[in-house]
């Protein structure tokens, strides 16, 4: 079977790179990005992308066109050839995902059931975004396992050691006696009204 160039795959990879780095990758980087073994193959792919209007060649360098970078900003329609003024302003916007999630590989969702953090604005039914793998700092809200019991609390430190504080006068602060496992740090709360 003849090898088929995966143009759509290439475009997707360039887009991700662009979104992250705000620049085009160099030839060497494209080698890895596209999974090619030779720079000549990269060159061929670039020519194809240029033909399709995803890239332009300026002073021998490949420059991304709006076609490649523009997927996130389809809001401002271009009228009669004049770019909408909003278009430029929207070039550097974040999606809600990017805004809420700092480390996508380490982020999990958890539906809150209890009311121990009610004064912190976290009520039963809320969805919290929890990041694993970090070290909590005082005043962070953490999901933690204290002596085999899972709980959502403020992480605090004092002379006696770690203390977990609720945000609800109904409950008391707790101190781990045997064990403390941090399941993750709460990074955002999501509540939908519908």
């Amino acid at each position, binding site marked *: 079977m003849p090898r088929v160039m995966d143009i759509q795959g290439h475009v997707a990879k360039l887009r991700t790179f662009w979104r992250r780095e705000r620049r085009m990758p160099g030839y060497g980087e494209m080698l890895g990005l596209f999974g090619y073994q030779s720079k000549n193959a990269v060159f061929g792919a670039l020519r194809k992308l240029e033909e399709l209007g995803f890239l332009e060649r300026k002073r021998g360098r490949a420059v991304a066109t709006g076609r490649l970078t523009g997927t996130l900003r389809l809001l401002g329609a271009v009228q009669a050839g004049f770019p909408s003024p909003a278009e430029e302003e929207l070039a550097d916007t974040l999606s809600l995902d990017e805004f809420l999630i700092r480390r996508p590989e380490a982020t*999990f969702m958890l539906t809150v059931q209890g009311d121990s953090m009610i004064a912190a604005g976290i009520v039963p039914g809320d969805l919290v975004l929890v990041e694993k793998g970090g070290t909590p700092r005082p005043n962070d809200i953490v999901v933690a396992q204290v002596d085999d019991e899972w709980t959502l609390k403020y992480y605090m430190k004092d002379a006696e050691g770690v203390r977990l504080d609720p945000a609800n006068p109904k409950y008391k602060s707790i101190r781990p006696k045997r064990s403390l496992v941090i399941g993750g740090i709460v990074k955002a709360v999501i509540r939908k009204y519908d």
Partner: protein
Amino acid sequence: MAEFPFTLQSYPRAIMHFDGDAFFAAVEQSIHPGLKGQPVVTGKERGIIACASYEAKALGISRGIALHDAIRMCPGLKVLPSDYETYSLYSKRMFDIARRYTPMVEEYSIDEGFADLTGLRRIHHTSYEEIALRFQADIRAELDITVSIGLSLTKSLAKLGSKFRKPRGFTAIPGPDIPGFLGQTPLEKVWGFGPNTVALLTKHGLKTAGDFASRPEGWAERLMGKVGRELWGELRGDSLYPVETEEKSSYCSISKCKTFTSPSSDPEFIWAKLVRNVESAFLKVRRHRLRARQLAVMLRRQDYRQDGLEIRLNRPVSMTRDALPGVRELFESLIERGAAYRATMVVLGKLESDAERQYDLFEDPVRIEKRAALGEAVDALNERYGKHTLSLAPSLFLGRHRKTDRDDQPQRKSALLSGETRRQRLHIPRLFLNV
């Protein structure tokens, strides 16, 4: 036998193989922290164990055992339905974490992959072993699951390494250590040696992978052809199989197989299940811009006996509807009325690129183009609203065999969030904790 090193260099190439430890069960324990340390198995919906946690393995339970036998062996067993959506999310993340260290990552399967680390010591200011250990620690800290790692000069050696110590294992086999390692590796452990090859090699007096690798060049090729020569080289530290970073797009065949929640003898239902598999298989065919020339259908009976038939299509096909008359014929000749079946399977073979379309003399190009346009519209709708939102009419009969046990649904699907639907859910794993 004196052991001569095959190479004196430690890592002319550095290839890491990583393998999730009891992956499905570990993911379940990660999203259900309450299940940590307990014997957990997945595969409830199929009645067979798909994956057993290390706690369950310690009690003698392993993959493939029938569920009722397992429960008899271990009454406290936690049995969960498979949640492939969450497993896939974890899998994706595992590979993304590997890509922090190197762009050359191969997604070999849902729970294992290769990464080429050659030349990365300078960027990360440390040894290859340390890079691999950092990756292993990241996975544990961020995903709360564990992987076992093998690090060596070739894919075959790295894979032997990751299997050597499990779970949470780390086995490095630098060049000078290869002969010693292979000397204690039985033949059947080698990636690519099936039972027949092992039997053949044993007849020639070989016992270990080391015996095989220390045969003279050409011996393996004479016995096993090109593959033999390649494996011989790979085991001696000569990297012949590159880490494939490209997403898999050159398939030899595409197959779909789904087991029913409980066996059924209702032909309409079995047909509906088969059509659903055919739709899924063709969806994948179209996504990779391929067409199929060959089609096989298999029906698995309640007692696991399997009947199958295959046909060659008179022209390569990428649309479900074009293949369906052929599938129906096969189905009619396979099915035995009144017999109970537990699974249907379809295999599409002889795949070729869909780039150039050529018509037969007697075909009606307009009609074909129209059907292709219809197919694209259906795909676009399903892309937008979720897989199988719009599907062929036989799927109406899928409802006939409604699941009796609601517990057969993973929690992700039974406890939907507001705004999620049966077809589409948020692409972030959910933790199930009572806080």
